[in-house]
């Protein structure tokens, strides 16, 4: 039976007497640590050039006013002050938080449920997975065209809902349904994406625990809660963080479907950044908005890392 927890970081070692072993161990550990850094180094170097450089530039820019054509000039916290006083920014920020929360939660739950359903081994389930994954492959511009059409007041979605007793719903033009509609399209697009990831993880789960649990007489639900979920924590962590980061950045899809409307109902920060930078030529202000978004996502991710760190001890 494999031990689920291990108190020593590198597993148990048996061997030569303590004193001699300790000396050899230190050297050994050092070397291993260096290998660890070596494995990560190429990525960090690449990021340093292509990611951190531009990011530093953008963060510095947030304290400047820059119209893309003249040199930036320093304005200190002015950009941030004007954001704080801007009702549109506040509305957009709230929209973004709602959008990220709604999409992430729904995508994670639905993605996991789909993966579990497919994993039951029902014949034909695998084909359903392939079919659903296809939906993620449609080019964005086709996605937006199709959904604008399907969500038309007299489009297919309403045509289906009407006999069920719903009245006409102006999905994309009513401020109460526009954001739910965008969340729905986002979940539609990304749940299959994460379903595949969950499925890959489910398939890699070791069998032994389940066999033991069945021998002990544990039911399906208990098996799920006490075995599957804990073992899936790294993947859940992954899906939650990645889907939140994706939703924070996503721009073309909501932009092409509603353009932020009606009014400001579906304006999210990524749209505001794009408009402020490229339409109004206020790159400094756009950078400031990005920094706000960045700070929020950093905080969220750091929190997730801490929350899930303990669950990862299982594997260490």
């Amino acid at each position, binding site marked *: 039976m494999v031990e689920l927890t291990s108190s020593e970081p590198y597993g148990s070692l048996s061997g030569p007497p303590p004193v001699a072993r300790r000396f050899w161990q230190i050297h050994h550990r050092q070397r291993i640590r260096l290998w660890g850094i070596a494995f990560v180094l190429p990525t960090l170097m690449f990021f340093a050039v292509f990611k951190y450089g531009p990011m530093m530039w953008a963060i510095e820019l947030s304290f400047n006013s820059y*119209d893309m054509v003249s040199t930036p000039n320093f304005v200190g916290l*002015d950009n941030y002050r004007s954001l704080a006083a801007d009702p549109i920014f506040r509305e957009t920020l709230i929209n973004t938080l709602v959008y990220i929360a709604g999409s992430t939660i729904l995508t994670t739950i639905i993605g996991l449920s789909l993966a579990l359903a497919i994993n039951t081994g029902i014949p034909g389930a695998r084909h359903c997975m392939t079919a659903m994954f296809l939906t993620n492959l449609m080019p964005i511009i086709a996605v937006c*065209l199709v959904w604008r059409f399907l969500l038309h007041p*007299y489009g297919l979605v309403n045509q289906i809902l009407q006999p069920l007793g719903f009245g006409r719903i102006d999905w994309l033009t009513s401020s109460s349904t526009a954001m739910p509609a965008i969340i729905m399209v986002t979940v539609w697009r990304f749940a299959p994406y994460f379903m595949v990831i969950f499925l890959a993880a489910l398939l890699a789960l070791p069998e032994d625990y389940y066999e033991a649990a069945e021998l002990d007489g544990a039911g399906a639900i208990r098996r799920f809660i006490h075995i599957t979920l804990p073992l899936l924590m790294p993947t859940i962590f992954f899906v939650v963080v990645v889907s939140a980061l994706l939703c924070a950045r996503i721009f073309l899809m909501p932009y092409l479907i509603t353009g932020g409307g009606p009014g400001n109902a579906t304006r999210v920060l990524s749209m505001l950044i794009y408009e402020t930078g490229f339409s*109004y030529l*206020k790159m400094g202000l756009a950078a400031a908005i990005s920094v706000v978004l960045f700070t929020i996502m950093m905080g969220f991710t750091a929190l997730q890392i801490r929350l899930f760190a303990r669950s990862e001890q299982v594997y260490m």
Partner: protein
Amino acid sequence: MKKSAIGSPTRRDVVRSIGVAGLGAAVSVPITRRAFGQTKKSVDISFWTFDNPQQRPWVQKRVKMFMEQNPHVRVDFQWFAFGDLGKKISVGFATGTAPDGFVSQDWFMPVWLDKGLLAPLDVKQLGYDTFTAFTGDFAKAFVDGATKDGKVYGYPMWFYGYCNYLNAKQFKEVGLNAEKDWPQNWDQLGEVAKRMTVKDGDKFVRQGFKFAMHSSQWTMIQYNPILLQSDGKWFDDSGKCTINNEAGIKAMTIRASIAQKYGAEDPADSIATNPIPGMDFLKERASMFFCHPLPISLVKAENPAMEAENYFRPVQYPGVQTGKGFSTTYGFNLVINGKASAEKQEALHNLYKFMMSDLVDAWKDAAPFTFAKRTGWADNPEVQKFPYVNEIIKAKDEGVFLPRSLVFNELADSMHRAVQKVMLSKADIKKTLDEAAAEVDRATAAYKRA
């Protein structure tokens, strides 16, 4: 002393052979065909425009002809989707990789000029003796956006006004005559639209009239005349936004009246797409629609019957006063990057002059898109052949221009939001306009600070 292949040495060749090539370039006269040899230094210029199925192939054709006639000039001609060109240009300016010449929407000119990005044009090279000769050949509206301090920074190319397109067949169905009964003021527009409307319970089978609501540019273009006709102004003399004063409220009320007062429009029910805003009109779901000149090929592609029987017909934009309607006229200028070298600028001048030297040919390829130029094309029989062409030309000549503002995009986005709130969320007009005006004032203040 070098002899030119065509004849005896010109003064130019003499000057060149003494090695004052730069001086020679500055007093250049366009040279058409050279039999052989490149006695002229070769010039590479980049020229970008937006894509349009008719306009771009014509521009491409002219560029190719120009290169054939001027073998020492190589033009790197690129085109991008309409919405993407602006991005490319901005990034280009930001990184020093902007093209030498490009086409600019006229409402961006104030911003380019304010930031000193464009080179002033030499009207002599374009074929005009004086500055006033140039501005006289184009209606004041167009030139206002392209001139500053007695210098001109853009060569107006295609400019069009908006017409009210009617479905003449549907007019006939309800017993109206498109020739005589076309709406000349806003109340008439509402009445006619109401008469054209066909409903099935709550659902519109046919909307009498449709406003395009897909982009902030179109919102501005359609709203601009309504505001000005109501004696409103976008900004007062101190720069404060005045869309929310009494005249502004009147304008917005007019804007909302077709749907809200006359019940002839359903703003939420539209199958328009960004590339084809007139889809509802073309599919005969709407009887009237404000639009720039509609290309025949577009109508044919979406509604062959409408094109074959020619029952789509442009009339003038309605006015607050009967018979005194006018629309917005807007368009595109050929401009030159201020950082381009002297030879490149010269080459571009020649290119632009050549491109715009045969407007009848342009009309043949790109009808019904009209030109800013007064002379040289409108009376040509080729042009006059086009159905209702004089309505389209009249709309262009009598139209007013969009507000020349340094915060035009912010203004457009605020107006767009305001119109959406009023039309889709049935918000209170005064409150909505107050919010929009405040947004614009904030944007103006922010621009000044920067």
